[in-house]
């Protein structure tokens, strides 16, 4: 516990020094021509399919604009539920000693949504809708907090791989690249805290759970990795980019062998983390 408390203190100091004004950090341009790269081509969800191969460079760039808008939109939805959950737990008995860092967490996640929303609203005129839905249920002691922070960690670990790759991709339109960079720099701190709090909650509560609760948690996390990936395959994006049969495209892209390998590779670090700590038993069905 001492190490996580100390780490949270250090993260607070770094967050204070790195404090950014989200309203001046990005120099938004008025117009955004779509015929440039907004997403690294290899990260586009239909990359590797015959449909992607059939597109010319200009069509691929336009698709990259809508894919980036989807990537930013799914970040907004993920961070909205994160902010709700953190705000709900702020100064709770379980987490009160981390309250100072949770304030930074909230502040930085809110800023990320300002960047993502700024791009989506200005240039696409919309945020893509969310299709994820949680059904309320009963939890064992500590299970809900553990799953909440584990969800955050999984979501952020996957997003961060994309952020790192795109923050250094010189092909990308500068604002898209800058948003990926700032997100990665701040998420790096959240990930340090996330891994520690997930371990702490699991070690504290899982010994008191029944075998069934523990198995349900493991299955849930494995399935959560899969459902997080499914958000990257959005028929609304394909429709906007002019791809025929957008719902069929979702299935084709998901089942494409190179996409499966890509998902497994991007997920490998977080899957290894969860497996090593016995938080999941099996590889997710990616």
């Amino acid at each position, binding site marked *: 516990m001492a190490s996580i408390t100390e780490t949270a203190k250090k993260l607070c100091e770094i967050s204070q020094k790195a404090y950014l004004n989200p309203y001046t950090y990005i120099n938004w341009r008025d117009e955004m021509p779509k015929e440039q790269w907004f997403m690294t081509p290899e990260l586009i969800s239909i990359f590797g399919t015959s449909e992607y191969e059939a597109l010319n460079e200009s069509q691929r760039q336009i698709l990259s604009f809508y894919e980036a808008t989807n990537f930013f939109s799914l970040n907004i939805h993920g961070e909205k539920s994160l902010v709700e959950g953190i705000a709900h737990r702020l100064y709770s008995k379980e987490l009160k000693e981390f309250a100072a860092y949770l304030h930074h967490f909230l502040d930085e996640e809110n800023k990320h949504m300002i960047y993502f929303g700024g791009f989506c609203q200005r240039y696409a005129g919309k945020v893509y*809708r*969310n*299709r*994820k*839905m*949680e*059904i*309320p*249920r009963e939890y064992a002691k500590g299970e809900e907090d553990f799953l909440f922070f584990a969800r955050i960690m999984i979501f952020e670990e996957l997003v961060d791989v994309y952020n790192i790759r795109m923050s250094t991709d010189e092909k990308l339109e500068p604002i898209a690249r800058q948003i990926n960079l700032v997100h990665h720099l701040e998420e790096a701190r959240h990930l340090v805290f996330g891994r520690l709090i997930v371990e702490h909650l699991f070690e504290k509560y899982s010994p008191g759970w029944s075998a069934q609760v523990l198995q349900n948690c493991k*299955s*849930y996390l494995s*399935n*959560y990795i*899969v*459902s997080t990936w*499914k*958000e990257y395959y959005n*028929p*609304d994006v394909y429709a906007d980019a002019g791809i025929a049969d957008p*719902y069929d495209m*979702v299935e084709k892209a998901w089942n494409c062998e190179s996409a499966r390998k890509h998902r497994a590779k991007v997920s490998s670090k977080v899957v290894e983390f969860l497996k090593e700590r016995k938080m999941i038993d099996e590889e997710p069905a990616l």
Partner: protein
Amino acid sequence: MKPEAEVKETLRAWIIKANGGKIKPEELLDDTPIIEERIITSLQIMDLILQLEKITGEPLDVEQLKPGVFKNIDTIYKNFCSENNRGGGEA
């Protein structure tokens, strides 16, 4: 919109596939509680929403949905596919 029986069969086939084939078709009745009995998980609802959009040809607004709409095949059909009550807000 396709006839009710055909839509329900499409839904039944999707649920059985999503369940990994552990439930037999004859065990999955129109009023079998699919979430409560863990035949599908809440994480698979996103996929189910995509299927419903494909069937109905209309986008769904998750923020307007109530959890009860996904209780069983009957409630899904009634809330999303019947001509009188589309959109999923009535469960």
